[in-house]
């Protein structure tokens, strides 16, 4: 054994160990007792020796099957501390017989020194086991840690799991502060109703995080510890329960979504309402209406359904101010209203209605319909401010006034109600001489004829000119002659009545002065004068006759200029309120665009424009009303 190779050492060790094992009966407490056979009598032995703090330790013994030795004092504990080769067995320094425990205090405890325990009975019977030798550091089982508690670290975004930080204090018995004991801990946790413990990693710190706990479940946590680099764990601590319930703040997202949904619905409904309420405007913006031909200052609606009296009112100047006051209201907000030019030369039949074209055609006796490029938007000097779009000037001298008259003429037949009215009028006026509306020659300043649709001819000049009666009186006398008009009412509603009145009063044409020089139409002033109501409206008559006398003065003045058979009420003093007996319907237009109320027999080829178109054998001069009957146009 002087020079021992490792292999020989090992072999020797093996032999010795095997021999030792065979020789020793029984077994020491450091090994398992489980595999010991229960058949063999169990002699007194030590069950366990434990040190809590590496400064003291205790040993417990058991008498085994030797019950006679169970009484206290029957067995004595002896220990051997192998400090030196000459150490001796000593008796237990402190007995605790109630527990069969031998306690070694600090003075009797030495670490890193082997201890051997021995039980001795009476008569020096010794029960000793070689295995009952140990060193104190190997039997250390620390106390469980204390002050175990937990704090919530965070919750996962899904709200289903959370992390917990568990912290504790080292056992007070273990002197960790002095560094005498270095302890490492092991945490175990499990669900409340589970049987398996989950063990976390052993680590020397006094806190540890448990990850992935589930919301709503209850967990049980306990902890134990041991010396570092040693095997034996201490006991478990008391359990601590962890439970985190659901957090209600999650629900705040649900009303948020509801609010959003309802808000969007409300906005949509609002948009729908706006669309529906402003439908017309939107339609106007999105789908601009195709501009229809319009007489400036005249609403197309008036032309349609028997609002002729209103139309007349407009045309005659609307009472005081005429069209200027009235018409702008119509079309100020309708810039899209286009104005149709009346152009005789234009072959384009831009007539408002086809029947008018046919009527015109009929009137004129022309094979083709007269063009109706009507310049309705033309404003005259007296007229309303022209807000026509794009129309440079309506004061076009070249534009024949007769066109407007023609328009009126064309319009006239187009009105069924007017025809009715006219028919009625004609009935009433059958006894009266018919008048004929003769368009005057155009020329000179273009004037817009503020005439009613129906202009009753009050006088016919020998040369063929026609004296028209003013229609303005209609409005003023509406109230007075309301009763008279009653029998004529009843055709339609109020509008119809009004139009009926208007029509009746329209018979009071404005006096149209035919100017052979071309200014066939009177100016507004003249017309206005003409249209002032006569001093004495004839009751019972819906019509008014034009007082020819004032007329006479004018044409007298002008007749001298040229043999104008026409009446020219130029002076403002002329009060031309000749009540017109009745009005006739323009039936024809001759080649010179003159209205022919009753187409006269062709006597002579129609002269040029300046010439008056109608050459009836008329007495030169005035025709007095009483002479009207002689007239047969």
């Amino acid at each position: 054994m002087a020079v021992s190779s490792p292999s020989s050492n090992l072999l020797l060790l093996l032999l010795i160990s095997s021999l030792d094992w065979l020789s020793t009966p029984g077994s020491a407490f450091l090994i398992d007792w489980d595999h010991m056979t229960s058949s063999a009598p169990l002699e007194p032995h030590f069950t366990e020796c434990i040190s809590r703090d590496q400064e003291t330790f205790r040993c417990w013994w058991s008498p085994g099957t030797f019950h006679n030795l169970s009484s206290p004092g029957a067995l004595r504990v002896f220990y051997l501390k192998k400090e030196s080769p000459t150490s001796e067995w000593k008796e237990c320094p402190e007995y605790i017989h109630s527990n069969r425990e031998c306690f070694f205090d600090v003075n009797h405890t030495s670490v890193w020194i082997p201890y051997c325990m021995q039980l001795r009975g009476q008569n020096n019977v010794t029960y000793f086991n070689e295995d009952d030798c140990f060193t104190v550091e190997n039997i250390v089982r620390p106390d469980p840690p204390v002050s175990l508690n937990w704090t919530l670290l965070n919750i996962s975004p899904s709200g289903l799991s959370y992390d917990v930080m568990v912290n504790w204090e080292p056992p007070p018995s273990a002197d960790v502060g002095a560094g005498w004991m270095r302890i490492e801990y092991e945490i175990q946790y499990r669900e409340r109703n589970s049987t398996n413990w989950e063990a976390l990693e052993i680590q020397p710190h006094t806190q540890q995080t448990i990850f992935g706990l589930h919301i709503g479940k209850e967990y049980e946590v306990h902890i134990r510890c041991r010396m570092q680099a040693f095997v034996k764990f201490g006991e478990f601590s008391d359990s601590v329960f962890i439970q985190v319930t659901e957090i209600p703040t999650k629900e705040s997202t649900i009303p948020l979504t509801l609010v959003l949904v309802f808000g969007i619905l409300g906005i949509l409904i609002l948009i729908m309402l706006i669309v529906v309420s402003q439908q017309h405007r939107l339609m106007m913006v999105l789908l601009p209406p195709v501009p229809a031909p319009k007489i400036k200052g005249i609403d197309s609606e008036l032309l349609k359904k028997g609002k002729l009296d209103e139309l007349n009112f407009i045309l005659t100047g609307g009472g005081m101010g005429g069209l200027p006051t009235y018409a702008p209201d119509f079309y100020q907000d309708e810039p899209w209203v286009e104005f149709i030019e009346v152009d005789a030369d234009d072959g384009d039949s831009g007539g408002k209605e086809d029947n008018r074209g046919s009527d015109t055609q009929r009137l004129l006796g022309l094979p083709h319909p007269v063009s109706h490029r009507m310049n309705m938007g033309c404003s005259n000097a007296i007229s309303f401010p022209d807000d026509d779009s794009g129309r440079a000037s309506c004061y076009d001298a070249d534009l024949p006034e007769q066109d407007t008259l023609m328009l009126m003429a064309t319009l006239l037949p187009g009105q069924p109600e007017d025809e009715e009215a006219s028919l009625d009028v004609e009935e009433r006026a059958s006894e009266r001489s018919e008048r004929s509306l003769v368009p005057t020659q155009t020329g000179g300043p273009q004037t817009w004829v503020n005439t009613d649709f129906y202009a009753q001819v009050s006088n016919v000049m020998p040369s063929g000119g026609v004296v028209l009666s003013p229609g303005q009186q209609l409005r003023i006398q509406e109230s007075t002659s309301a009763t008279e008009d009653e029998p004529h009412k009843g055709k339609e509603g109020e509008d119809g009545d009004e139009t009926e009145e208007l029509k009746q009063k329209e018979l009071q044409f404005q006096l149209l002065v035919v100017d052979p020089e071309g200014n066939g139409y009177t100016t507004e002033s003249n017309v206005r004068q003409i249209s002032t109501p006569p001093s004495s409206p004839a009751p019972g008559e819906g019509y008014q006759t034009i007082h020819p006398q004032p007329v006479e003065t004018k044409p007298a003045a002008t007749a001298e200029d040229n043999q104008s058979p026409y009446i020219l009420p130029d002076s403002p003093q002329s009060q031309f309120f000749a009540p017109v007996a009745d009005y006739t319907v323009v039936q024809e237009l001759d080649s010179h665009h003159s209205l022919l109320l009753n187409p006269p027999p062709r006597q002579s080829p129609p002269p040029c424009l300046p010439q008056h178109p109608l050459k009836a054998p008329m007495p030169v001069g005035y025709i007095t009303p009483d002479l009207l009957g002689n007239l047969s146009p």
Partner: protein
Amino acid sequence: MVDRVAVGAVWPVLVGLVFCGELTTVDAAPLCTNAQAGCHVLSLANLFDRVIQHSARMHGISNDLHSEFELYFLPSKNQIGRVSRNCHTSTILTPNGKENAQRMAREELTEVILKLLVAWRDPLWHFHQGLAHHHDFNNFSSNKSLEMSDMVHELRKGVQKVVEKMQTLGIISNSISSLASPEVLLASNSAEWRLMKDYDLLYCFRRDSNKVQNYLKILKCRIVPEHGC
């Protein structure tokens, strides 16, 4: 004799290699004087922590080896009783209790630590050599034994650094520097440890590494009790 010379020649080289290699030891950074620039100055607490960690690891390895050895040899036996002979380090007076250790002077305690570490250098090397040549044990044990022997060496150097630091700080006196060279100590114990069996060696070393760890911890908590005490 030839073997010893070879071992004596190879061993410093090996140790040097290991020293430069894997282990994160206390000697990684040189001690700086006067806080020179670019020099990583370690505090005493840091030094102590490193040393204590080292000793804990050393104790762990010795524990593993001891347990492993118990597998090869009959595990049902508690071998303590059979250790009739004391470990070769029994001659070194070591405090066997907490109070004794706390009552001991710092210089004495430091000396004890150093003596222990010195005493185990050669035996462990020898033990490793025996294991390496023997194919009965797996490589795991062989590596562990090598690591263990290296650790002892490293730990001794680390503790020496700590002592120097303490001496510069004036915590302990300079009496330790008079510690004799390891060869002196080694010579006095050279015969004994050769007589020991491997298993006894492991058992003894396991006990002594625990002692070293304990003493270092007590020293640290007495001198620099900031962290982890």
